[in-house]
């Protein structure tokens, strides 16, 4: 069981690390949001699954509470993250930030 928890945490950490690397490597705000999305999806899904498995393994009231709340945190994260990313991207585009080296920008053409 310990091995499973460590594996989940390791996968989560690797994806979170790649997300952080994406923030440095990618050229503009939109592509960096792609990198941040990666953190929230696979990074936190696997980390929180690790917490949930640990909770189930511990058992009892404490462990059960931990597992249930980890799942709830995951659900709320997945519901609210896209809303925030979208708000950031829309605000960036409205304030006139062009996507870097974009091959096409249909939203700019619309205006």
């Amino acid at each position, binding site marked *: 069981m310990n091995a499973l928890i460590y594996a989940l945490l390791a996968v989560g950490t690797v994806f979170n690390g790649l997300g952080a690397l994406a923030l440095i490597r990618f050229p503009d705000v*939109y592509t960096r949001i792609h990198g941040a999305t990666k953190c929230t999806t696979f990074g936190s899904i696997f980390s929180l699954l690790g917490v949930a498995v640990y909770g189930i393994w511990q058992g009892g009231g404490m462990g059960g509470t931990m597992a249930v*709340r980890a799942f*709830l945190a995951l659900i709320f994260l997945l519901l609210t993250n*896209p809303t925030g990313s*979208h708000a950031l991207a829309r605000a960036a585009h409205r304030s006139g930030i062009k996507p870097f080296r974009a*091959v*096409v920008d249909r939203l700019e053409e619309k205006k």
Partner: protein
Amino acid sequence: MRRVAQWTATAVLAFAVYLVLATFTGPWGLWAPDELLAGLVIALVVALATGMFVWARGDWRVLQPKRWLLFLVYILGPFPLAMAKANLDVAWRVITGKIRPGIVKFNPNLKTDLGRTFLANSITLTPGTLTVDVDEGTGDFYVHWINVTNESPTPEDVCGPFPSWARRVAE
């Protein structure tokens, strides 16, 4: 009358979420009495404060059990699969730096707010695609795509099975 229905539906949903949050606080994995009381008060306050906004556009179809079941299938099957693929793809792009970004436009023909929100959230949650804007009049989606393969794509090019699922679950 409509107000009361809105408040009641919101209070019941908020209370259900609170019950899940507070499991295992009492004996036998149930709820402690003070937790139930706190949950009731919080659910009522939340309902009175937000009830009229939650159902403002008359989206009562969220409550149909059939849609919940379909949503559960979606969240356990096609969605994680697409997300896993996109995650690995973007991970590879982070390492190699091979990107071809652009904002593309497509029209998935969704009419309701619920369907559009559903699809936009699914798109944004998948790494590599990001909903920048939705035209409320025509229903056009403007999506920032990290690897533009087609400058005038169909909805299926950008987000695979998501539009048909959005139609099934939310329309």
